[in-house]
């Protein structure tokens, strides 16, 4: 096992209000050697915090309070600053969310890639230069352009340069945090294919973090769905998409455009994720869930196996029955009736079996 994340808990403290936000609350997953692992979830669910926790590059107010992050068996959370610094980029590299701003504007791309080498190795200037040229060719940028400044690159080129930089020291694990979000659809596709090829070539594992389900579907062997600081579901990508178990994943699937259906077939999930300042011992999704029952609000359901190598954190799967759940979740009125039944008790079975109101359009 290359990377094992076990019960990771990361918090941010707001110094002015003394309040603490638990951005990641007990997340566990593993990544095997050579595997592509997808982590999907909406903005603010804590997926980037996981990336920053693994690399230990959290901002000053962020702290790993519990759990372990084991890379090749070594717990990174226990390391001192200097050994941790040495693990960065040689073992784990990052392709950042915003390639546009992840390059320092006052240095050439060449200088910035070499800086990563110099921080860890003492290669000759010639060897570093050969490596940069090799990488530029690999990611499809004319090596002549390596002495350009970042502002002279297009968005797609910057992203390619970032990928080149990530590969420079042959890391075991590449964390790609929203690697294509800032790009247009065409560049997105090219970059993703490129990334896939390069990963296969180098044999590195990849943790792909995105809010875009299609990216994960295309790229990843296994996928975890994250919601409000916790994992909702984890399993092979194929079954996550074809046979999801968690109501949140079911909702996401509805909200995701299919090539077969028109835009009007999309069903949004009403409501918004709960604040993470003071998480109650309850299912985080209960307030938005059409299948929620009183028990969902009294204890936080643990992950449990629902199929082969497939786990979900929902207490209602057995009671409602997964077939009924999938059937009901595909109906617009099931989701948009929930808003009108604020009382927790009646929102549970009542909404699932007898929707109170048929909602017309998509709620914004």
């Amino acid at each position, binding site marked *: 096992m290359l990377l094992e994340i076990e019960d990771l808990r990361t918090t941010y403290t707001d110094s002015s209000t003394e309040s603490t936000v638990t951005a990641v609350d007990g997340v566990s997953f593993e990544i095997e050697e050579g595997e592509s692992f997808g982590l999907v979830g909406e903005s603010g669910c804590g997926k980037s915090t996981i990336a*920053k926790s693994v*690399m230990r*590059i959290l*901002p*000053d107010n962020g702290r790993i309070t519990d759990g372990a992050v084991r890379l090749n068996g070594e717990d990174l959370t226990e390391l001192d600053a200097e050994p941790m*610094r*040495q*693990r*960065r*980029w*040689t073992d784990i*590299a*990052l392709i*950042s*969310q*915003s390639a546009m*701003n*992840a*390059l*320092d*504007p*006052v240095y050439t791309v060449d200088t910035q890639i070499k*800086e*990563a080498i110099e*921080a*860890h190795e003492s290669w000759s200037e010639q060897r570093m230069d050969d490596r940069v040229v090799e990488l530029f060719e690999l990611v499809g940028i004319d090596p002549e352009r390596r002495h350009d*400044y970042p*502002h002279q690159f297009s968005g797609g080129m910057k992203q390619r340069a970032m990928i080149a*930089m990530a590969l420079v020291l042959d890391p075991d694990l590449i964390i790609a945090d929203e690697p294509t979000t800032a790009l247009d659809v065409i560049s997105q596709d090219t970059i993703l294919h490129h990334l896939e090829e390069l990963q296969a070539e180098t044999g590195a594992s990849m943790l792909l973090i995105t809010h875009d389900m299609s990216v994960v579907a295309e790229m990843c062997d296994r996928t975890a769905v994250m919601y409000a600081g916790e994992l909702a579901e984890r399993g092979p990508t194929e079954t996550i998409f074809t046979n999801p178990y968690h109501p949140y994943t079911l909702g996401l699937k509805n909200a995701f455009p299919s090539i077969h259906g028109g835009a009007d077939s999309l069903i949004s999930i009403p409501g918004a994720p709960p604040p993470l300042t003071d998480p109650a011992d309850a299912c985080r999704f209960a307030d938005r869930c059409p299948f929620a029952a009183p028990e969902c609000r009294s204890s936080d359901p643990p992950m449990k196996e629902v199929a082969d190598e497939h786990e979900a954190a929902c207490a209602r799967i057995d009671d409602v029955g997964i077939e009924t759940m999938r059937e009901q979740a595909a109906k617009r009125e099931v989701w948009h009736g929930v808003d009108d039944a604020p009382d927790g008790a009646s929102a549970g079975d009542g909404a699932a079996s007898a929707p109170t109101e048929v909602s017309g359009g998509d709620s914004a």
Partner: protein
Amino acid sequence: MGAKGYIARRAAQSVVTIFVVAVLMFVLFRLMPGDPTAVALSPALDESVQQEMARQYGLNQPLHIQFIRYMASVVTLDFGYSFFQNEPVRDILMRRIGNTLLLMGTGLLLAYAFGTSIGALAAWKRGSFDTRVLVSAVLFRSTPVFWLALVLLYVFGFHLEWFPIGHMVDAEATYSGFLDKVFSVDFLHHLVLPVLSTVPFYMAYPLLLMRTTMLRIEGEDFITMAHAKGVRDRDVFAKHAARNSLLPIVTTAPIVVGLAVAGNVLVETIYSWPGVGRTLVQAVLQSDYPLAQAAFLMIAVIVIVGNFVADLLYTVIDPRITYD
């Protein structure tokens, strides 16, 4: 357009600005209350002598002729004779400009060296160090230069007698030349108090600006990225955070040069420093118009050249600058 074209254009703009200042100077001096002829030409003198002197100074000419002669003198750097020192204005100022630049340059250099590094460190370290720096900077920023100069003069010059209370060198010392003088212990001893009077005030601005910019830059993605790359903390600080924070420091440098010019006039006067500022004050008090005019112009030139240099520096430190 290339860098050369840009530099040439900025140089041309600077020259035009100096020209405009020169015109303003001519107009202002003639709008000032008091008749320059009454000062220069003592009524006690014989009528014919008075007329002869007015002719020499060109004061009997109509205004437009005076203007043309004045502008010609600006172009040829010939500012005529001082009313009182009976010496060409140019010679007087040439002797003093070096002294002014020495005092001001030392003050600005120290202010920028300390201001930017302390500001950067405060933002990097945060916490109580930052708070102390912030309070000190605000204190420095609100301490008038003349007040601090007088306090230092009183405490360290007059009372403790650690430092001389004025002038550039000891009255009895003789030096073979300017450089010989400048590199003497005697001179440095005289330099301490005037420089100390100005540095706190000059450094507050770059310090606060550096601190604020650093705090913003530290949140940038490329800083996180540098950490992720495993770049050592001190390199992330110096090569990325501080390096990027220097850009606004250079842009605003001309403002501080402007402050320094004003501060220098006060400090030179208080410490009897033989510079352009003190000369200016004396010339104005004595209604020595030719000298005052040229001294004002010279100070304006210092500010304009400071702006020009800052613009040139900016093209060097920010690769994103385009020359059009």
